[in-house]
């Protein structure tokens, strides 16, 4: 079966990254560093012990979000889990705290009631993202791992996850709208820069969810079916 993705294993990794700088995020989440010279995607992946098909499935899906891969690409769930853990760490440990810091700087007076309400909104949002991701890390991912290892005997299924998987970026969209419509500030470079970050982060969170919904869920569903066949 031909892989119809945009990039394949024999393409040069540096070409991929220079054409699509956002793929830097994907590289670091897979734990891949820079400096890959002329190596192909496959070579770089095996240098870092990353499953090449999983790497390609994620990059190609993110590059062409129109394409719905059918059948679900062969991925290695363990590699994908590592990616997702790192992605969570990126949002909770780096990206969202960074936005909060810049937001506090831009808003100024920390005792102003409006500024406090804006920060409180943002903090509530981050709490939601955190509990969303904690649930995945404490319930879904361990479930997936025990599935892979073939020693799961509970009642949980991945459908339970996919049916309740909310779009974690939706409230960030609302936040952006509120700032644009109601925050009475003069346009400034600093404020624009925070808004750009929020726009980008909203997209990144949507992409992150897409990876879970389109790659993780189908892969685990397949695993569940083969498990059912064996038992």
């Amino acid at each position, binding site marked *: 079966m031909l892989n119809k993705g945009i990039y394949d294993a024999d393409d040069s990794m540096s070409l991929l990254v220079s054409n699509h700088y956002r793929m830097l995020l994907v590289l670091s989440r897979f734990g891949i560093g820079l400096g890959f010279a002329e190596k192909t995607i496959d070579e770089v992946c095996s240098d870092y012990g990353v499953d090449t098909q999983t790497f390609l499935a994620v990059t190609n899906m993110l590059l062409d979000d*129109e*394409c719905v891969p059918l059948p679900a690409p062969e991925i290695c769930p363990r590699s994908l889990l590592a990616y997702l853990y790192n992605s969570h760490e990126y949002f909770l440990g780096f990206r969202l705290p960074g936005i909060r810091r810049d937001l506090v700087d831009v808003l100024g007076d920390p005792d102003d*009631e409006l500024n*406090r309400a804006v920060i*409180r*909104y943002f903090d509530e949002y981050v709490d939601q993202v955190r509990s969303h991701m904690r649930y995945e890390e404490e319930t879904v991912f361990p479930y997936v791992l025990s599935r892979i290892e073939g020693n799961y005997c509970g009642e949980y299924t991945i459908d339970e996850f996919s049916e309740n998987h909310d779009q974690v970026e939706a409230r960030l969209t*609302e936040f952006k*709208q509120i700032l644009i419509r109601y925050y009475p500030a003069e346009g400034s470079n600093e404020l624009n820069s925070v808004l750009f970050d929020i726009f980008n982060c909203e997209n990144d969170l949507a992409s992150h969810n897409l990876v879970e919904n389109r790659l993780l869920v189908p892969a685990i569903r397949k695993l569940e079916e083969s498990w059912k066949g064996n038992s």
Partner: protein
Amino acid sequence: MSRNVKIIITESSDVIRRGLVSILGRLHPFHAEISEASDFETLTTSLARGGFDIIIINQMIAGPQLKQLQKEAPAGPVKFVGLQTSLADSAVLRSFDASISLYDSADQIREKIIKLIRRPDSDTRHQTLSQREKEVIACVVKGMTNKQIADVLCLSTHTVITHRRNISTKLDIHSTAGLTIYAIVNKLVELEEISGG
């Protein structure tokens, strides 16, 4: 939070229909639940089950039956979108709420559909808030429950809930934290009254 939008696509060509399904699969911030119909009969069977927000239909398939469909559409904000696959009489397209062409880009198509979803069904959106609604916001921001708001404003809980729903639609704000920001900016509350502040 993001809303589910039920869409049915009526088009006889698999290629075109699947293409639309794929494009509308990403209707950020909405979640599209898409059904497909390859002919008029399948469409009417599906419509009988009801619940659709948007009906996309090839204008050649709709033909003169469009008027009938629109009359029968269950009372509610069902929108009809004409899918233009050939040169069409503009008079025909006028009977639709919107039209998309085979040569529209994916973004153009999504934009048209989102505009339709956002368009108010009874002009409630972007109207100014009524005095009552402002009072309800002030109460919500103070951290009161629906029951408490009902007691203070001498309304039924049911009415309070209706007010809250209308406020969300008008402002497109769905969280208390968001309403707090709105209330402060528009001076609907005394600052010391805000809960948790």
